[in-house]
């Protein structure tokens, strides 16, 4: 195979795998920011919290890190629901969610980061999944399981979430609360309860993303900073409340980053990826799958 073609194909494939990680990181935010209109800037910090708890549990039990992250989701759901109760009580109920709510989640982010340093130290933590050192080869194409398995798990989790949102009454209520919360009251549904449930789901998705992240790379308390810009860009590019759009945008982001890094150098990757975001928003302000107002 022509070396440039092999480089291109590998750039695309590795970009898709990287996109799987971005999708995992952004899916929860798509629920909280896209559907609930809660600007949870601390979402990547919750992901890192999940990563570090998984790393500690892995060191203690030796269980697969992705399995551990799935086991963590109920606890993270409860944490998310509790945080939403506080957020709603102090900000949303009073109509102060715009700036004060953003400040609240900034505060949550710093508390998580400092708390992690105090509890487990500033060092990087890692896991060594059984498959992490294996790479499948399809001709000239490399498929490192370190990237492939987390990507597949995140796609499966997002697929399950999409089914839940489309096929269940509660799921449809979550989708509805994003559009018209007062209409829900006419159906005798408490929108606050639905938002609490949905915000819990978004934080549970952060736990899953944390499991994926710590398989891919070592993690410290501040590893989430790298993802803040990316996950918001992915959610906006995908169309805010569309999980399908979120996945597509995440894959596009990963492919653009890696193909650019392969051919033009890694310094250009973020600039080109965010340039593509601007281009998409210029042509389609509502994102890939967003609805126009």
């Amino acid at each position, binding site marked *: 195979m022509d*070396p440039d073609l092999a*480089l291109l194909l*590998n*750039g695309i494939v*590795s*970009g898709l*795998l*990287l996109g799987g*990680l971005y999708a995992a990181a952004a899916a929860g935010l798509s629920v909280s920011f896209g559907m609930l209109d809660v600007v949870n800037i601390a979402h990547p910090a919750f992901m890192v919290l999940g990563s570090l708890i998984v790393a500690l549990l892995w060191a203690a039990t030796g269980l697969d890190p992705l399995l551990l992250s799935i086991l963590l989701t109920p606890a993270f759901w409860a944490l998310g629901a509790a945080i939403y109760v506080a957020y709603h009580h102090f900000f949303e109920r009073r109509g102060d969610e715009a700036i004060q709510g953003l400040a609240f989640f900034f505060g949550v982010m710093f508390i998580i*980061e*400092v708390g992690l*340093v105090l509890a*487990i*130290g*500033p*060092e*990087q*933590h*890692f896991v*060594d999944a059984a498959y992490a*050192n294996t*790479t499948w080869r399809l001709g000239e194409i*490399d498929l*490192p399981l*370190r*990237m492939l398995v987390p990507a597949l798990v995140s796609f499966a989790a997002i697929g399950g979430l999409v089914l839940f949102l489309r096929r269940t009454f509660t799921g449809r209520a979550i989708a509805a609360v994003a559009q018209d919360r007062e209409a829900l009251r006419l159906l005798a549904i408490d929108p606050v309860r639905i938002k609490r449930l949905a915000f819990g789901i978004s934080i549970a998705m952060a736990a899953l993303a944390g499991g994926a992240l710590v398989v*891919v*790379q*070592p993690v*410290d*308390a*501040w*590893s989430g900073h*790298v993802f803040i*810009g990316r996950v918001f860009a992915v959610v906006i590019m995908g169309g805010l409340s569309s999980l399908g759009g979120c996945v597509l945008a995440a894959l596009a982001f*990963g492919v653009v*980053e*890696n*193909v650019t*890094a*392969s*051919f033009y*150098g*890694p*310094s250009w*990757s*973020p600039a080109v990826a965010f340039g593509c975001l601007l281009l998409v928003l210029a042509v389609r302000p509502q994102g890939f799958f967003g609805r126009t107002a």
Partner: protein
Amino acid sequence: MKDISRRDLGRLALAAAATVPATARAQTAPSGPPIRIGYSMSLSGGLAGNGRPALLAHRIWAEEVNAKGGLLGRPVELVHYDDQSTGAQVPGIYTKLIDVDKVDLVISGYATAIIAPAMPVVMQRNMTFVSLFGTGVNADFKYDRYFSINPAGSNVKETFAKGFMDIAMAMDPKPRSIGLVNLDSDFHQRTAESARHLARENRLRIVYDRAYPPSTVDFTPIIRSVQAARPDIVFVGSYPPDTAGLLRAASELRVNFQLFGGPMIGPHITAQKMQLGPILNNLVVWDVYAPEPTLQFPGTQALIERYQPLAARENTDALGHYVPPLAYAQMQVLEQAVRRVGRIDQAALAADMHANQFDTVIGPLRFDAMGEWTEERNLYTQYQGVQGNGIDQFKKAGTQVILYPQRYKSGEFRKPYTAGA
């Protein structure tokens, strides 16, 4: 002669008990107002992984000095604030330390990004400043009271990558091409410039020369592009999270380079050593210390033996081979200068530091006019025979052999680098 009665004997014993320890206390216990040493230190944020071990080494030094009677008979006190690994915090911290806390002496926190923002404040107050792991900080300031605890020396461009190139050019057959990869950071730009300069001097063809941003998540495209360029040797400059990503990618892509490494900061940290395990085999890494018999100085082993149990208790870097020896030496330089001068006099301290040699746990040091070491000591080490992920193998000689400089050489270079394959 009058016989000593039993009562007299009792009085004598009481007097001895009261006076002898008092005399001993007068010789050992420091008294008076403390000598306060102020600095910022990264105890949170990205640099905390090295900032916390540095602080632990400083505390060990302070306890030892105070146990031996203090400095100039006064106790030493460390006054430090967390800079959160953010350079923007640093000027305010040093302003407070000097103007409000009225510290007697100042030193720097860890790394170039923290040292440089402190310089204007320190220079305005004419304080003597001993820094830790700053590379080329004083090249622009040219402050005559700046002293650096960093082995890079003052001529980074000519000397930093020399060890790497010397190892490469001693290979048979000689390499003909080189790939350069570095993080977009001040330190790594300087080191890449050194490699670029020396590659040209050695007539090596540079077939890949790219920097990557700190926000990079996936390093596979970088390693694959380097592979596609087919260099014989690869010089890489990276910080810990990136180093793990680069080496993982190298392992997944089954790289085979005659020589691979450089200032890849990462395996210096114990957790990363253990994580990477056999992937480290034959990696050539710039370092400042390795537990080899050729690099032992008075006090080195004692410091590490004192550090390790404390580090385990405080949940910080377990081995302490990277920052702690240099952080301790930073304090030794200050201590020896103060003892020689006999008072806290910033100008006299700086003059003493320029004029004299310092005996430290990292060996004898002398400073040049720029405050850098007169003799650079960039170590190039190679990991050999790493098996599994256990910590004990990294405590003993032979696992991280020193290849350069010749005077500390403890093993022979092995090639190629195949990332554990």
